[in-house]
């Protein structure tokens, strides 16, 4: 009898325990896939510290995140590209605020027969390769900045993303800024009308095609390249220097534009002025309603944002993301005050 009683009590305790979990305030979000690893780490750590708050994040892509926050089906969204003015218009009545969370970089990867090591790409070289104007690896524009390397007289095979992605957005945004031809003929977007090349699905699709196709070039996220030990090239930045993509040079890109940061944080940081800044870098943003209709959820989001800016940034480098520069963190702290509860 005693045993039975004990069993009932323990079951009861278990039940209340799980009830407490179920009672946790559930905050739903959806959006970009690029920051998914760091977001799930943050949400997990935050839930451990605040058991009464549970985040549920669906990494369905930036486009999906923007669609869902516009349609008011989620509590927050996430995107690798800032929402356009037209998109903010369609979210009528609901002002949406952008909060940068972490930074990422996009790197050129290549597979050249008989040549290995880090290649230097001038701005003209990289844009003309993707425009299809430079078609051979031993073109003087490439060879000239890599005097120590013997580049073959072989046709260049360009590989790009076939799926819409924030990586493509960052890459085409960079190309638009460095090449007039690119911005007038192609433009920037998560998917564009590529002048040349093959399409691979996802970072793994591009990396796979580049690995298998001799004399090819593509682009992937820095995290993907470093986790898979893929060697990548240096890009020439606005100051004319060839910069290797590292977490530091990506953060440097953000701090070099911090002085001109608009109040809504909708800024592109590709081709920044800093001498050591990596030119193909981007923020990724959380999208939050300015006016929170649910006070409890709004308070939880505000608390989380504050935590993310201080504590959260400590987790970034381990996962391969570049942390926000201090100036941007200060600006965001002020911006959080705009959220109306």
């Amino acid at each position, binding site marked *: 009898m005693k045993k039975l009683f004990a069993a009932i009590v323990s079951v009861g305790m278990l039940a209340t325990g799980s009830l407490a979990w179920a009672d946790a305030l559930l905050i739903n979000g959806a959006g970009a896939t690029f920051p998914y690893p760091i977001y799930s780490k943050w949400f997990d750590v935050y839930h451990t510290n605040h058991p009464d708050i549970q985040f549920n994040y669906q990494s*369905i*892509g*930036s*486009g*999906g995140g*923007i*669609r869902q926050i516009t349609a008011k089906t989620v509590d927050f969204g996430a995107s690798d590209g800032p929402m356009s003015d*037209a*998109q903010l218009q369609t979210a009528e009545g609901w002002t949406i605020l952008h909060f940068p969370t972490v930074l990422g970089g996009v790197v050129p990867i290549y597979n050249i027969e008989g040549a290995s090591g880090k290649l230097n790409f001038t701005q003209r070289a990289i844009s003309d390769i993707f425009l299809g104007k430079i078609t051979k690896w031993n073109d003087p524009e490439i060879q000239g900045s890599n005097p120590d390397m013997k580049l073959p007289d072989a*046709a260049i*095979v360009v590989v790009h993303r*076939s*799926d*819409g*992605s*924030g990586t493509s957005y960052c890459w085409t945004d960079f190309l638009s800024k460095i090449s007039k031809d690119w911005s007038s003929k*192609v*433009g*920037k*977007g*998560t*998917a*564009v*009308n*590529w002048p040349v*090349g*093959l*399409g*691979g*699905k996802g970072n793994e*699709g591009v990396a*796979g*095609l580049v690995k*298998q*196709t001799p004399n090819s070039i593509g682009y992937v996220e820095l995290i993907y390249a470093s986790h898979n030990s893929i060697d990548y090239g240096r890009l020439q930045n606005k100051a004319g220097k060839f910069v290797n993509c590292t977490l530091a040079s990506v953060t440097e890109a953000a701090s070099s534009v911090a002085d001109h940061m608009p109040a809504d944080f909708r800024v592109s940081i590709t081709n920044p002025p800093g001498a050591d800044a990596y030119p193909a870098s981007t923020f990724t943003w959380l999208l939050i309603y300015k006016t929170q209709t649910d006070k409890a959820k709004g308070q939880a989001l505000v608390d989380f944002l504050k935590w993310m800016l201080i504590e959260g940034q400590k987790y970034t480098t381990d996962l391969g993301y570049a942390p926000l520069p201090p100036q941007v963190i200060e600006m965001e702290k002020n911006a959080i005050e705009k959220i109306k509860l």
Partner: protein
Amino acid sequence: MAETLTAAQPASSRPPHLIKSQSKGNPFGWGDLIFENLTLLFALSILGIACAIAWQLFKNSTLPRHAFGWSFLTRQMWDPVAEDFGALPFIFGTLVSSVLALMMAIPLGVGVAIFLSELAPRKVSSTCAFLIELLAAIPSVVYGLIGVFVLVPLMRVYVQPFLMKTLGFLPLFRGPAYGVGMLTAAVILAIMIVPFITTISREIFLSVPISLKEAAMALGATHWEVVRLAVLPYSRSGIAGSVFLALGRALGETMAVTMVIGNRPEVAASLLAPGYTMAAVLANEFTEATSDLYVQTLIEIGLVLFAITIIVNAIGRLILYKMTPQGEAH
């Protein structure tokens, strides 16, 4: 099937529903009534689902229909930045890759089925049939990975240079050899749809009445002649059914195709050049499409794919009808 059966066999072994309709007795036939209406309901639900899909696709694609009109089907342009869209490269890619795949898969699939049902020992036949059915259960992403890691290098290093050297005078086989491309996609598709053709055709061949085959053999026919004169004509509509099923799979296949086709929205004469299909562009671009026109254009591509599937199937059935000698079918 039913038509051929009644023609080939005496009237007494007609399908049961034909006999039932002659003897309308049973006054307490509630069971039959319920059964008939229930199955009718099931049949109608298929029609209902198809109509609902078509309606939803139509309703959600008004913007591009107004913006591009019918020229959407004939223009070669895919620019998400300028929001200028034409579906021709995708329609072309879907049709060419599927037809090429069928051209490879029909002889192979039917050939395997003939061997398994007519020539192979029973044990070999059932083991092989089991293995082939297993092929049909492999997820398409696995086929895609096999395509990327095994087929693409093979195509680039051996098959495509060989084709360019021997048949390069035709515009169909001009380089450069990327490995990925229309032909590679068709080969992967062919491997994926062979199980459909083989499994169904084998069952059909096994159901050919032994009396037919014995009659042919009694007249002195060889193995080949038995297959050609007795087995194949009897099974024609069954084989066609398997081909339609395979074609449906080929038209709608997404993952495996997008991994090996090269994803380039361009109508190219060469089969070695990269292409794109309707299903692949939907899978690739839907998640990141934000503007209304862009999303609705992708939905319209879905509508076009739906319509093309119906048209292709209708043409197939028409050909089958024309091919069937008039005395045999009613």
